[in-house]
């Protein structure tokens, strides 16, 4: 498939794409560059190469952002959210894909509507309610909030995977005397597992990066997520920006590595569910 053969078109196309590439990479390059510099050199010229490489930016970032605790908090919160969304979501996705959609229209529309509900619509009563029941600073409670927020997207995406499973497979298993639970576990789950991986990646990415809910519900020093801890560290009056950029890299790096390895799943999932982070 060739849309254009002209050499000039190709030149313009590659120049434009490269220009966008530079715009995209510029702030990322600045982060990497300055994470390796002493802060005095950042003030002089943020674009210059470091005269000496300051690896201790990373060790100081690790201590000051309390990453030993906060990264674990983020990982636990992300893991819990992934487990909750994938189990409850695949159960619901299975039912929605297997029922005549007319009867389940209301539920489907309700879920679609709640993907577009502003967080502020439920945040305030939820916060004061949680505060009353002592659930603030509780990562399990926050994992449930994330689950409620990310589930509709996960269900809509998983539903399309469940729909692709041939009906005959289910029917013959049922005729052979399998229960619905067995059909779900042994027939469906193995087939839809790529979909579950995609959902796990997108939900994990969102939970890891989430800011508004985490900063509202997890404020205790030992409960902060890595992102919120980074935010507080970088908000101090006298900031060492070399150290802060190092902290940023520590949070970004695991995500970027996962993304590069599994980009097809990420992009497919984002496109399928249309979520904005």
């Amino acid at each position, binding site marked *: 498939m060739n849309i254009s053969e*002209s050499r000039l078109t190709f030149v313009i196309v590659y120049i434009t*794409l490269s220009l966008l590439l530079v715009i995209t990479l510029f702030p990322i390059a600045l982060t990497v560059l300055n994470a390796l510099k002493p802060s005095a050199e950042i003030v002089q010229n*943020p674009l210059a190469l470091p005269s000496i490489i300051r690896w201790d930016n990373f060790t100081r970032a690790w201590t000051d952002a309390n990453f030993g605790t906060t990264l674990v908090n983020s990982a636990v919160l992300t893991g819990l959210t992934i487990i909750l969304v994938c189990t409850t979501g695949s159960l619901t996705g299975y039912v929605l894909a297997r029922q005549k959609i007319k009867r389940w229209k209301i*539920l489907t529309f309700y879920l*679609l509507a709640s993907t577009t509900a*502003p967080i502020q619509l*439920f945040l305030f009563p939820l916060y004061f309610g949680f505060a009353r029941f002592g659930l603030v600073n509780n990562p399990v409670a926050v994992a449930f909030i994330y689950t409620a927020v990310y589930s*509709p997207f996960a269900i809509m995406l998983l539903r399309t995977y469940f729909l692709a499973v041939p009906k005959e497979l289910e029917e013959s298993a049922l005729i052979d005397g399998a229960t619905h639970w067995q059909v779900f576990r042994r027939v469906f789950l193995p087939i839809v597992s790529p979909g579950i991986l995609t959902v796990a990646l997108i939900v994990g990415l969102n939970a890891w990066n989430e800011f508004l809910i985490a900063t509202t519900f997890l404020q205790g020093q030992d409960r902060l997520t890595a992102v919120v801890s980074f935010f507080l560290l970088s908000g101090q009056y006298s900031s060492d920006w070399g150290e802060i950029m190092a902290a940023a890299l520590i*949070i970004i790096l695991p995500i970027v590595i996962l*993304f590069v390895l599994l980009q097809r799943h990420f992009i497919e999932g984002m496109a399928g569910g249309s979520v904005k982070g």
Partner: protein
Amino acid sequence: MHRLYVLPTLIINAVIIAIPALLTVALAFFEWDGISTPVFVGLDNFRALWDDSVFWTALTNNIIWTLIFLTVPIAMGLLAATMMLVARRGSKFFQVIYFLPVIIATAITGRVWQAMIYSPVTGVTGLLQRMGIDISNPLTETSSALYGIAVVDLWHWWGFLCVIFFAALRQVPAEQIEASRIEGATFFQTIRYVLLPGIMPTITLMMIMTVIWSFLVFDFVYILTQGGPAYSSEVLSTFAYRSAFYDLAVGKAAAISVVISLFGLAATIFYIRAQATEFEK
């Protein structure tokens, strides 16, 4: 009864979203500080908003934000996606790079732009100033703060649209493109009459989502300016958040949330309609 499999989802959703959302709607008619007993005040919260100039600034800013995001990132995404389709070689590589900002936490993106680009002390702006170029930090001027934030969100966001449009463009049947080439259509005619109509449903869906998201925008405003200076970059969601947690005016915050939701609801109806046609299949 395997239909009961939907129960966990429904219970979590009811406790976290549905019930608190209904409470928010009710709270909009009360005065409440979050601790003592709420006092019913009727429409007072809405009347107070009507007379509050910050509310109107925030609403205007949300509308400006919507207009920016309906045009600039969609145009950039379409341009780059079409060019990737033409280039073919290297399109995978471009796609991965353009998507990188989408996967970086908003708190990090916000701080990097603030310190490394906008800051007159540690950023590129400061460097340009020292070189004698007349440029200031957009985030500290009332006239430009909102646009300074929008640039950061644009950087973070356009790659997502580009990847979605590129995926849609590749679904346009190759025969249609071949045919238009054979018929002697120019490059731009092919884009105008074959490719764009082919991905129109995707563009429409993204525009609807843009309207919804534009009324939810929170992170970058809260991180970069907290709505300042002098409320110039305030949007409805930061206004509501500050009212609830800084001023402890939860009733007022609830009223603002109801307003945000009403704007979102209009777009949501279009969204559900667009999605519903897909579910009929």
